[in-house]
């Protein structure tokens, strides 16, 4: 910490290479979750854990927060921490709005989203069906 006051953030190169490789590996894991089509709670858990690991190492090592003084760290991380409250409130609110929409406006429980392949196939074989898909506009 004393050195960070005088000579700036000077650290051995090795740690940057290690974190760099780690970020590559964890990103590959994230992509693998999608590639192998993991679904449900497992998908959410894995994606969010990998995201937090990556974010943590970028802030701590690449942005040097690990070596900064507590006053600066709290300034950086404290205010964004309050945003968790906003996210929580908006999730509760969103849940309520969705319920109200289902109850008063109705919805089609069988509706499924189209993939681009399905959409283009529907355009190609029958223009009538393409029109139906375009209703989503």
């Amino acid at each position, binding site marked *: 910490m004393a050195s960070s006051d005088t000579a700036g953030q000077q650290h051995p190169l090795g740690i940057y290479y290690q974190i760099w490789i780690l*970020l590559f590996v964890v990103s590959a894991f994230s992509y693998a979750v999608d590639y192998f089509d993991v679904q449900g709670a497992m*998908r959410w858990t894995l994606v969010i854990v990998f995201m937090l690991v990556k974010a943590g190492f970028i802030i701590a090592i690449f942005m040097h927060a690990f070596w900064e003084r507590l006053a600066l760290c709290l300034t950086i991380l404290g205010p964004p921490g309050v*945003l968790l409250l906003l996210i929580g409130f908006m999730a509760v609110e969103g849940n309520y709005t969705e319920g109200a929409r289902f109850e008063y406006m109705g919805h089609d429980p069988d*509706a499924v989203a189209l*993939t681009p392949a399905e959409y283009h196939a529907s355009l190609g074989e029958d223009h009538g069906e393409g029109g139906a898909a375009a209703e989503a506009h």
Partner: protein
Amino acid sequence: MSEAAATSVAPADGVSGLVDDWTADKQAYHVPWGKAMMWIFLVSDTFIFTCFLTGYLNVRMTTTQPWPPQSDIFALSFGGSEPIPLILIAIMTFVLITSSGTMALAVNYGYRRDKTKTIWLIIATALFGATFVGMQAFEWTKLIVDEGVRPWGNPFGAPQFGSVFFMVTGFHGLHVSAGVIYLLWVARRIWAGYYDKKGFEIVEIAGLYWHFVDLVWVFIFAFFYLL
């Protein structure tokens, strides 16, 4: 010399007193002022991106229509192969992480006062950033022209998909583009010898901005593309 004067004179009133009080000899952050200011800017930017992502959370929860399948929409096939899911976004992620790595090295070589390596690493970082923006332009073109995605609707599902996509990735892309210009400007000033006497904190400050852009992408990649 001004410090000695400040202790002996009574505090001024009015506007100059206000200025004195806020500029007095009280230092909270023991870092160069430019670095403290960059951090404060990044905290404010965190709020902007969090508002976007929270807005996305809200519209995604409240829409009664199914969310379009990102994995298929961002798939790409090479030479007529089967489309590989989300491959373009994965490549963009790796390009941005690579640029973060070269930036971290540039900061390190900056403090070692190795100007040549610092400049080339910054230029490499900017080139990776420009590559990222180019791939994003390709992605936008594909979605707008080929798939007919608009901010108000798309053929696949919930219309909110388009507005969130253009707003969030557009704002992030603007940050990357601004970062590329900023980095090249810093590299040019290093080359011109502007920081030889001042010291090379500027590389760390520019690096903070660049790592932040990478950090935001980590969250966009997880929440918008993967979940």
